[in-house]
């Protein structure tokens, strides 16, 4: 039965919760404390529920049996039921991540529309400040999860092994576990309103995050769990890219998308611990009565801001570096030209990784930290313009004199360039201390990061969904609807978010449910535009959903692209390639006579065949 693993997982989770909660109550009783205290009981219950969930969904059958000398059970490799269980096939995990993340994206998008309705006019329209704060906070953290995991969990899983000519990732079972950690995160977040919601935004600054409703605890546990998933993912992709490249796939022949995942994985693996520590200390302040952030007992609220941003600034590069990779990948194939300045782009990606660790305090220019820290963090932050500029040179140089094939993915890649340049230059206004002192915590910031993450990364992700749709589903999407979606979204997106810069300059703080009357017109305008934007996603969802079930069957390489994922069937077989590919040249040898990226020996045959079309 298809749903059996999920039913088992829920059951085991319930048992785990009972065990954890029971043990905590019992222990408290033994220690002479009031037996029931919601937050400690929920925390311990959750920890055991998570373990129960993982064992139930398949970690026991596919993995843990081995620890007790038993034979692990062979996972299911056929039929749609394999998507509903613990599968170690990187392609299944990729699809699991993508579907989960697209659903979360649409939900979080709907939440943003609720916020826009509330903000359509001053005063209260549809909800009070408390519900608004929870809606806003949920929108924030859900979209952060989407921005982190859609590429790193979804596309990287499906395509990194294919593009480097490997059979799977280095640690398939850890990979499966990193996905199955995600559904509990979603459940916790959606349950926050049941425990009073949470009103700190996704940043969870104490002391507020220590003092507010218990919904905050669920949020903290969710974010912490998500961090574990992210660390495991980073580890896995580093090991995969270092160890499993096909013969001949030297570092200089690695597709730029793979390089971008490598860069982002470095950050995932090494920076996430910092935010985990921050979240853990807030949980301890709430649950165990420690005082990391309680000033009255010698704690320091500013400490959290440093710890939090020490991860969360690098984290924006976990989001944006893979977007660079995706956009450049699509630009080169649809221009039919080599990627411009390939080596310089690789160096730039790695430079951004390095710089990303030493810029965090640009979020703290108005926090009250020492004034002497302003100048160094302004300088390091603005230096990021240089490697980012190199990525732009590569994009523009690649399309210049190309043979531009303006299919939907290409439109999104070009849209990425135009949106991201706005995100980039407005970032300077926030890196510059004098302007940031005024703009910090206003809608200018909201507009800026939406330009980088939505106009930038989400545009790249949407492009990639169209680009790789035939490979993943084996079917073609409707091109006309794709083009309609692009133009509809591109125009409404820019109208909506350009106006938010204006609202910010007008003096509207971010994260507010209400504002003075002078900002009424501008806000109504944004609200109307945001609904036009939201409606464009109906075209997107309808197109992909219908095409997935009924679309025309796709060929192996509809885009005539040279990278390895297109040199196998759509969708690829379980073992990816009929036999191990041998890489003999650059993946971007367009216009070079006789250039070949890889050779694939047909299974069982001896005749060599070109790996390109």
């Amino acid at each position, binding site marked *: 039965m298809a749903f059996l693993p999920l039913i088992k997982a829920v059951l085991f989770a319930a048992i785990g919760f009972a065990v954890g909660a029971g043990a905590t109550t019992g222990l408290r009783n033994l220690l002479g404390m009031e037996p029931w205290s919601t937050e400690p009981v929920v925390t311990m219950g959750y920890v055991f529920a998570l373990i129960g969930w993982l064992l139930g969904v398949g970690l026991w059958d596919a993995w843990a049996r081995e620890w007790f000398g038993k034979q692990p059970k062979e996972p299911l490799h056929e039929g749609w039921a394999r998507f509903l269980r613990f599968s170690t096939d990187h392609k299944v995990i990729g699809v699991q991540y993508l579907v989960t993340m697209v659903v979360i994206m649409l939900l979080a998008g709907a939440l943003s529309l609720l916020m826009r309705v509330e903000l359509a006019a001053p005063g209260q329209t549809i909800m009070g400040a408390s519900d608004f704060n929870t809606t806003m906070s949920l929108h924030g953290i859900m979209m952060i999860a989407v921005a982190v995991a859609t590429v790193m969990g979804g596309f990287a899983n499906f395509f990194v092994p294919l593009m480097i000519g490997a059979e799977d990732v280095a640690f398939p079972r850890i990979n499966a576990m990193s996905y199955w950690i995600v559904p509990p995160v979603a459940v916790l977040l959606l349950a926050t309103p049941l425990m009073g919601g949470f009103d700190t935004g996704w940043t969870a600054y104490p002391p507020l995050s220590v003092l507010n409703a218990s919904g905050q605890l669920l949020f903290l546990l969710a974010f912490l769990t998500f961090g574990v998933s992210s660390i495991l993912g980073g580890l896995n992709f580093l090991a995969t890219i270092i160890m499993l490249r096909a013969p001949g796939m030297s570092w200089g022949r690695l597709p730029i998308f793979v390089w971008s995942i490598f860069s982002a994985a470095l950050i995932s693996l090494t920076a996430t611990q910092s935010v985990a520590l921050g979240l853990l200390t807030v949980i301890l302040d709430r649950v165990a009565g420690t005082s990391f952030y309680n000033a009255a007992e010698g704690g320091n609220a500013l400490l959290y801001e440093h710890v939090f941003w020490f991860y969360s600034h690098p984290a924006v590069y976990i989001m944006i570096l893979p977007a660079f990779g995706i956009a450049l990948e699509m630009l080169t194939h649809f221009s039919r030209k080599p990627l411009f300045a390939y080596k310089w782009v690789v160096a730039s990606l790695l430079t951004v990784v390095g710089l990303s660790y030493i810029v965090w305090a640009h979020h703290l220019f108005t926090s*009250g930290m020492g004034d002497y820290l302003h100048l160094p963090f302004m300088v390091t932050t603005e230096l990021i313009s240089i490697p980012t500029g*190199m990525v*732009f040179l590569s994009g523009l140089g690649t399309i210049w*004199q190309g043979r531009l094939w303006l299919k939907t993915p290409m439109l999104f890649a*070009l849209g990425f360039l135009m949106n991201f340049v706005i995100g980039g230059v407005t970032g300077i*206004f926030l890196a510059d201390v004098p302007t940031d002192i*005024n703009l910090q915590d206003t809608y200018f910031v909201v507009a800026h990061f939406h330009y980088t993450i939505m106009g930038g990364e989400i545009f790249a992700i949407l492009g990639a969904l169209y680009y790789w749709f035939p490979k993943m589903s084996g079917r073609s999407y409707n091109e006309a609807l794709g083009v309609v979606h692009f133009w509809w979204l591109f125009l409404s997106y820019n109208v909506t978010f350009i106006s938010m810069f204006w609202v910010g300059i007008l003096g509207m703080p971010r*994260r*507010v449910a209400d504002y*003075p009357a002078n900002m009424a017109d501008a806000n109504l305008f944004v609200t109307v535009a945001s609904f036009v934007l939201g409606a464009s996603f109906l075209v997107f969802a309808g197109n992909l959903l219908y095409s997935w079930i009924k679309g025309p069957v796709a060929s192996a390489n509809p885009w005539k692209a040279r990278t390895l994922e297109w040199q196998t069937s759509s969708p690829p077989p379980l073992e990816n390639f009929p036999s191990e590919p041998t890489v003999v040249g650059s993946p971007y040898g367009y216009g070079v006579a006789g250039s070949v990226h890889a050779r694939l020996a047909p299974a069982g045959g001896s005749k060599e065949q070109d790996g390109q079309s």
Partner: protein
Amino acid sequence: MLELLIVPWNLFPLAAAEEAAVVDNAFKLLMVLATPVFALVVVTVIYSMLRFRRRGEPTEDGPAIHGPRSVILAWLTVTTGLTILMIITPGITGLRELRAHASEAPDLLVQVQGGRWFWKVTYPEYGVSSTKELVLPVGKRARFEVSAMDVLHSFWIPAFRVKIDAVPGKITTTYATPDTLGSYDDDEHMRIQCAELCGLGHSVMRLSVRVVTEDEFKAWIAESTAK
């Protein structure tokens, strides 16, 4: 609503303090630097979409240009130069202007306390405090000593372009020299607005700001003391 469609050069709201001019000038300078960068990218993309477009499936490859070293080095030089320029101005120059008087004694000391969800201002030199409005004499440099009673807040006066967080267990400071008479009733930017999320009442955690002449200020102090 039409004003949204054209971005006017003077897009800033009321500026009522000397510090606001520094911030607005820095903003304008960055606009001057950012516009050509933005234009270069957008124009190149649109031109390429029109000029290099091929209808239908591509039948040939483009030229194999891998990136001539001269172009890359020229680009690197220009982007590095621009970056250094904006670090120097408005970055370093703006910081120097904002901090030019940091070591001088202020004309007036105001203690600002943020609590959920109100602002309390105290004038220790006069033994006066208020939770109704912040009154400042025009042309006098005020030092704000900001603190928080419970959670993080942020002291922001949009018309002054000045902002500093209120942090529990800590006193943070900022300065402003109001140079324009006016009050919240004339212009909504004359307000203290909490800018750091602090829970339920965050959006409406505001306090009117009123900039008056020195005589009016003295009268207001006398009147407040009498109460």
